[in-house]
């Protein structure tokens, strides 16, 4: 092997480790935040608080993973917050109508699927930009949800269902188990199946993907369907947590999900993204909020600090990436 080859082998080695290192770095930042908070507040490391933290980050984390599929295809899904709010209404109606919980959940997820397929249709068949079609759905879905409920709130009268969010298994909150339930298959799907590869290929260059025999439209349908189904799943979880169906809930969660995804290293131009990235991104955001509450930071300062920390974290991450 010539020197060039040896050197470049080393570079590729570095690059191979890189994805892992990068995750480590973000994870490192998260752990750093935890360490600081553990020292600064007496209660941060309490079982109770860690449970709270895991519960608080869970829903955005799941949304962010769904959003990542879309962002990898160079798309965007602004509707996820509205889907969450809308599906709390759907599941509340179903459960109150006496439909068994498992069936209610299934139907709610199918409603999510329908919304995602509609997005796929709008993008592939009507030629609409993802930003526009999902913004339109965001607007309309909130309207439909409000219309169904006449602007009010539906109390879910099934205590087993609403108790779920507060439960723990093996000391870990049920909501966090749901993250694991979603993330593990999502990881396998994204990194170890051909459809995962196709998501990247479509995000990178749809024409080349198409000429290589990839069903580009199918891949787009798939990405948006996954995002919406994940959002519907979060709607189910939110309904168990707040015990009501209300179409205005989860406002702005789309931005939080997108932010988690981007903090987690995805590029809005597509073809870059992972499953662990958005998870870490979501828990970084949750930790900032949790920590600020525990530190009794004034809520206005809390916003200022959140903005500042987002900059600092992504900046360090960029540095690390460039310096690799």
């Amino acid at each position, binding site marked *: 092997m010539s020197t*060039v080859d040896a050197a470049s082998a080393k570079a590729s080695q570095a690059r191979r480790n890189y994805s892992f290192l990068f995750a480590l770095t973000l994870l490192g930042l998260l752990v750093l935040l935890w360490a600081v908070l553990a020292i600064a507040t007496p209660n941060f490391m309490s079982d109770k608080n860690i449970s709270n933290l895991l519960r608080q980050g869970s829903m955005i984390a799941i949304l962010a993973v769904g959003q990542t599929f879309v962002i990898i295809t160079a798309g965007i899904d602004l509707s996820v917050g509205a889907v969450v709010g809308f599906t709390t209404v759907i599941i509340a109606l179903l459960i109150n109508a006496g439909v068994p919980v498992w069936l209610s959940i299934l139907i709610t997820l199918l409603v999510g699927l329908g919304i995602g397929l509609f997005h796929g249709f709008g993008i592939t068949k009507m030629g609409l930009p993802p930003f526009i079609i999902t913004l339109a759905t965001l607007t309309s879905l909130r309207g439909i949800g409000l219309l169904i409920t006449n602007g009010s709130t539906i109390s879910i009268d099934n205590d087993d269902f609403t108790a779920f969010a507060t439960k723990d298994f093996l000391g870990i909150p049920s909501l966090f188990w749901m993250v694991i339930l979603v993330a593990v298959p999502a990881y*396998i799907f994204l990194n170890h199946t051909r459809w995962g590869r196709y998501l990247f290929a479509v995000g990178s*260059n749809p024409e*080349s993907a*198409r000429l290589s025999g990839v069903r580009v439209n199918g891949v787009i349908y798939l990405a948006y369907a996954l995002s919406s189904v994940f959002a519907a799943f979060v709607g189910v979880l939110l309904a168990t947590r707040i015990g009501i169906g209300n179409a205005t809930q989860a406002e702005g969660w789309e931005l939080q999900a997108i932010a988690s995804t981007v903090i987690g290293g995805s590029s809005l131009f597509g*073809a870059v993204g992972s499953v662990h990235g958005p998870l870490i991104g979501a828990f970084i955001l949750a930790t900032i909020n949790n920590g600020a509450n525990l530190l009794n930071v004034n809520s206005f300062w809390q916003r200022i600090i959140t903005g500042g920390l987002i900059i600092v974290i992504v900046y360090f991450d960029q540095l690390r990436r460039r310096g690799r």
Partner: protein
Amino acid sequence: MSATHLATPEAAPLASGDIILELRDLEKRYGPVLALKPASLAFRRGEIHAIVGENGAGKSTLIKLLTGVIPRTAGDIRWNGKSVSLATPQEAIDHGINAVHQEVMLCRHLSVAANIFLGDETVKFGLLQKRDMVRAAQAILDDMGFQLPAAAQLDSLTIGQQQLVATARAAKRGTKFLIFDEPTAYLTRQEAAQLFTLIRRLKAEGVTIVYISHRMEEIFELADRVSVLRDGQMVGTRDIAATDDNELVALMINRTIEQIYHKEQIPFGETLIEARHLSGKGFSDVSLSIRRGEIVGLYGLIGAGRSEFALSLFGRNPKTSGEILWKGKPVAINNERQAIGLGIALAPESRRDQGLNLNLPIGLNLNLPIYERLTKGFVISAGEEARRADKQIRDLSIKTPSRRSLASSMSGGNQQKIVIGKWLNHGADLFIFDEPTVGVDVGTKAEIYRLFAALLKEGAGILLISSYLPEVYELADTLHVFRSGRLVGSNPFHGASHEEVLAEAIGV
């Protein structure tokens, strides 16, 4: 490296006034990759200096250093005897150093004129003088003999035409040192001839030209001197009169090639595909057939409609009339997947736009058509995925540290190999290669042609689309000429001379 003994130092010592630009121990590293090992070279005022070397040898890297596109990691550059930093493209432009890069570096959303004047707009009272610029750009294009509309939006042009726009942009007034990085890769002979006329004229005006190409005949036609890069190392400079093909190739690849156009006579088998009176966007009434063991060549000028025809055969573009028979039976090919399913593969002409997923790993690019096959149960077999990619990298000697490297970090020629490799990896009965050797070095070209032979032996048929006449001329068993979307002449051009084929293509 024991090969350095091949390099004989330049014969004639130079008077310093003759030298316009000099490199001293210029070096470029990408992280740990040494893309250019410390190189020293002097360019004479008004000479045409060719640079040759294999894919990935470091030619484009050298050019990027000279034009301020990337920073050097060591060494010195002297412009008219003075050390210059060349830290930004603007600085290079200010000195009068311009380049036509290997990949077209223009803004596809802007007009031709806007691209030609980008960064150097005509402004009066703070306002752009758009008409003046269009007029001036048209004058420049006309003067250079390029028949292109200055007001057109860039992306309405073919890649070749875009390359000419880039040339016009770099060669317009004020240029003292002009670098061409494989300028003819996307040009037809006719356009290449226009380009050569321009280059000779610039030389006569005292402009120094650096000319990079994989086409030896161009080097011998144009250059005064030639320098050879191998593996990032400057291995020698020769006066063109004092060297020949064989020496240059030996310097480049450290071995000799007996025969570039490898051709074996293989008996033809069944007819794979037959197009009957096929029409579509860009072509009409095309009838031809391809048999197993046969290379059918399609020669024509840029925009003649060959690529559009190929895309129709492949199901990417709809046909408007006519019929396709596959192994004797009429078939409908409505999309790419149907074509692939029948056993057709297409290596498209534009590696950037159609052929590659640039910001993804090489391995993924190579395996993209075969992931269905790599899937065991629900997941991809990682070992098989790696094995298949590594095999293509080895077979095609794709110069990369790893299948995990991004396609975008490859040199142009190596990118082209990935486009081909992906279909070799998949396999097919009929291979459509659209400009398969654009930007590919001599050694690799020979390998690719050998590979054609291997495919034919295995019973495949090949449709070879090329604007590089020697290639189709030497390789095709049946040669068709396309002109303005139609096949011209009823007989294959086998046995016709180069000149006759060219005349048909141009329509004189």
